[in-house]
């Protein structure tokens, strides 16, 4: 039985195909269209999923969309009525789209699907709609290695829910409680993202990266004025300070007065005040999530927690929950954002709607999140030959030792191998790799390769068996969704300890300076030989050569571009940046040979 899950029309469209409960393929539309967070109908993703399984759309038993458009429209109308006559501007902006397109969503979806397969007709109960947070919850629980768990989903907003709690047991998910719009931790974080001059629904991770440079001096203001936190973990926002229900901005003028600063223009330099604001909202998010999860653990006394929703991509929050909430085990869906909704919706149909049991509840079903497209040797050769670049072909072991010695010699490698990642993180299939020991590498990668803000840190991919030697984490982190502090014996005594301004990130503060943030934290990926054999062997070869069991692993893309998908995308990125060496499957191209 095939179930196809879809997400889209808001941001980050995606498709996922499952067969008899096993996840076959999943991909985000942005990777094919090259439009970051593409919200369009996920046609290319669907085509990829069908081609991977070798089936047509008419062979699919159920197609499910990851949210319920009517419920969303109901929220829109009720929000307008409750705030009228204020809010007329966003109402007038939203209505034409709804009246012309989204209200006829089912018809629109059917027409779009029929463009893929003209013979396909939706039969009774074949086209389904799953609630937004139900999709997130299913993506977190059914893909997890737990047979029972508390499931917490937190994002900006779905239909009504912004935070939801469910209890997963076997193949059942039972809703427990939720917090409704407009009270939203995701939107609170986005409001600060907006105030700091970053893009809402896109750049929240930059705020997280900026936070360690500041001090949470606005924390009291946040909890005194903006958020009314209750002891059971529920909260309300003071809507006087926010404008997203009644205007076209995230924050109101009262917010600027409260913070005593106008919104930062995107081109304006980042000041210490901006860093303090980032530190304040990050600390507030950590405290809110801790309060929620501590209350949940006390209430349910279940040892396992599953997380999904955009807020679950905040790895600093996840690590705090793991250390302090009481939950013994945490599993975070690697595609925790809306793209993962496609996967969750498909799993929800298979297990909840069709009442099918889970085959194995002790194993992570995400297959290291390597669910996306790969390319054949012929396709690689075609792209390489068309580029006119000289390339070398290697046998696997030889390839790894060549890459390892080049990285050890200070080179930056664009690495393209196997199926691409599903979700926002590059996990060793479409990655840029470099030497974590090199103190210059953080600046070099930010400025000459990624062309992004100089404050942004990089993450290490570390051999699982060595992770505890370098980081204080204690658990596996295969999806780069946890942070660990660099262990004290790996730190370098620092004359200016405690200084956390942007230039200070260039100062070596550990034996792995390129992946050590100013607060000594690192967002790490642990790699083992069973789950990710090729990538493991590559890092292992580097370890045997240098004694260092890790590499810098950052996504293979430039700033504001999706991660590369095809060999041609990889070649374009390689030629347009300062990457020294490109590896696609068993082929290697050197910039020096051009």
């Amino acid at each position, binding site marked *: 039985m095939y179930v196809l899950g879809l997400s889209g029309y808001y941001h980050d469209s995606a498709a996922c195909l499952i067969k008899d409960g096993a996840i076959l393929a999943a991909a985000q539309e942005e990777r094919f269209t090259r439009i970051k967070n593409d919200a369009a109908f996920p046609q290319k993703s669907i085509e990829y999923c069908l081609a991977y399984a070798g089936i047509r759309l008419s062979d699919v038993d159920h197609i499910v969309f990851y949210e319920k458009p009517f419920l969303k429209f*109901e929220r829109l*109308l*009720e929000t*307008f*009525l409750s705030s009228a006559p204020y809010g007329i501007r966003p109402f007038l902006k939203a209505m034409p789209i709804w*009246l012309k397109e989204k*209200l006829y969503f*089912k*018809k629109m979806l059917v027409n779009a699907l029929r463009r893929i397969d003209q013979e396909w007709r939706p039969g009774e109960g074949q086209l389904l709609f799953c609630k937004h947070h139900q999709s997130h919850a299913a993506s977190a629980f059914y893909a997890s290695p737990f047979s029972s768990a508390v499931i917490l989903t937190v994002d900006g907003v779905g239909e009504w829910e912004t935070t939801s709690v469910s209890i997963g047991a076997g193949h059942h998910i039972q809703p427990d409680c939720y917090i409704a719009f407009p009270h939203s931790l995701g939107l609170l974080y986005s409001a600060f993202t907006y105030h700091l001059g970053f893009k809402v629904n896109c750049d929240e991770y930059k705020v997280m990266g900026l936070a360690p440079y500041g001090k949470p001096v606005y924390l009291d203001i946040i909890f005194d004025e903006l958020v009314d936190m209750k002891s059971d973990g529920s909260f309300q926002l003071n809507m006087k300070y926010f404008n997203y229900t009644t205007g076209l901005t995230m924050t109101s003028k009262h917010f600027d007065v409260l913070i005593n600063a106008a919104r930062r223009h995107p081109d304006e330099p980042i000041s210490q005040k901006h860093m303090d604001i980032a530190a304040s909202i990050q600390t507030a998010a950590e405290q809110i999530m801790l309060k929620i999860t501590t209350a949940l653990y006390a209430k349910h006394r279940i040892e396992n927690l599953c997380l999904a929703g955009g807020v679950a991509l905040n790895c600093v929050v996840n690590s705090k929950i793991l250390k302090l909430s009481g939950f013994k085990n945490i599993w975070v869906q690697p595609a925790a954002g809306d793209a993962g909704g496609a996967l969750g919706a498909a799993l929800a149909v298979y297990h909840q709607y069709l009442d099918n049991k889970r085959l194995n509840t002790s194993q992570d079903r995400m297959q290291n999140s390597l669910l996306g497209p790969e390319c054949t040797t012929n396709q690689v050769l075609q792209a390489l030959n068309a580029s006119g670049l000289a390339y070398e072909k290697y046998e696997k072991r030889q390839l790894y030792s060549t890459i390892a010695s080049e990285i050890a010699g200070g080179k930056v490698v664009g690495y393209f191998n196997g199926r691409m990642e599903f979700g926002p993180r590059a996990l060793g299939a479409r990655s840029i790799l470099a030497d974590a020991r090199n103190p210059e590498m953080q600046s070099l990668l930010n400025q000459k390769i990624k062309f992004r803000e100089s404050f942004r840190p990089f993450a290490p991919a570390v051999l699982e068996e060595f992770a505890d030697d370098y980081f204080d984490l204690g658990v596996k982190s295969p999806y780069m969704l946890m942070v660990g502090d660099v262990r004290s014996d790996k730190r370098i005594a620092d004359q200016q300890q405690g200084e956390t301004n942007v230039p200070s990130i260039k100062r070596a503060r550990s034996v792995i300076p390129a992946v050590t943030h100013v607060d000594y934290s690192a967002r790490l990926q642990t790699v083992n030989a069973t789950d990710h054999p090729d990538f493991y062997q590559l890092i292992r070869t580097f370890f045997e050569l240098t004694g260092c069991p890790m590499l810098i692993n950052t996504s293979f893309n430039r700033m504001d571009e999706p991660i590369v998908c095809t060999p041609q995308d990889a070649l374009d990125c390689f030629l347009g940046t300062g990457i020294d060496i490109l590896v696609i499957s068993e082929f290697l191209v050197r910039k020096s040979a051009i």
Partner: protein
Amino acid sequence: MGDLLDFLKFLKYRKRYWLWPLALLLIIFGTLLVAAQSSALAPFIYSLF
């Protein structure tokens, strides 16, 4: 039209009766808006306003 009726049925199922007048109004204007942009009815609709 089927989708619009579905939406009204949905509001009834959800017991959101207070949204019916607003929904009906929007649906009428929406239908006019779509018709005005895409059909020979346009001149007659314009004359209404």
